[in-house]
């Protein structure tokens, strides 16, 4: 099975750019960097999580680990894991 993570990371970044605009800092945030420390607000982060539910067809569970929400890479890893 091909590695799904690169395509998922690309889709997550596209969702962020949709919310912030193509000229925003989010287009250049490295995959592994903390989104909050990079400047993504809490409202934007939650909006991203909601958009991911629609884009990838899953629901976030109440007991999700905070570390899973840290970066584009960790978010992509979570999506790949829940897709099995």
């Amino acid at each position: 099975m091909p590695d799904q993570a690169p395509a998922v990371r690309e889709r997550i970044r596209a969702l962020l750019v949709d919310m912030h605009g193509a000229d925003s800092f989010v287009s250049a945030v490295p995959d592994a960097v903390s989104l909050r420390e990079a400047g993504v607000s809490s409202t934007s982060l939650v909006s991203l999580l909601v958009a991911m539910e629609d884009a990838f067809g899953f629901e976030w569970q109440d007991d999700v680990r905070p570390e899973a929400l840290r970066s584009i890479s960790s978010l992509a890893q979570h999506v790949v894991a829940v897709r099995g």
Partner: protein
Amino acid sequence: MAAVGVDIEPGAWLVWHPVRQPCGPAEQFVAGRRAVAAALTAAGSADRVVPRESDGRPRFPRGFAGSISHTGRVAVAVVVPGAAAVGVDVESAAITPRVSEFVLRERERRTLLAQYSARELFAAKEAAFKALCAIGTLGEFLFWQIELRQSEDVLIASYRGASVPVWVRSEAELSLAVAVSR
């Protein structure tokens, strides 16, 4: 810019500072640090430097608990001398019904949305999260896992047995929430 005593909590000092163009993360950071320097001065701290911890949180001078928040346009800092922990959040973004449903439990939406806006409750959870994290005994958690309930004229935010009162105010396009743990 002016430091003002906050009517929500005796001894609390609050300072706003505008974010300069182009209003990116770097400008927001600078505005926050300027706000906090002014708030610490007003509160009587000789030390006005607030370095970052390894996890990105600001480290306030001993005895001067505080917190910083910003939108893309404005930063705010709150300092409460003698408090155990402080959390502040300012929000300008519209909270969509989906985001509200994500962050607020069904009971919170049913009991609190008649009195507070979704943006105020969002800010309340964020402010409480900062204060509860600063206490440092709860481990890692997410701000929406905090539960809100009304108690007289203040919100009470709770997580795993720890609780903190949260005051919320809204003006124009901004909602402000402050949590203070004594």
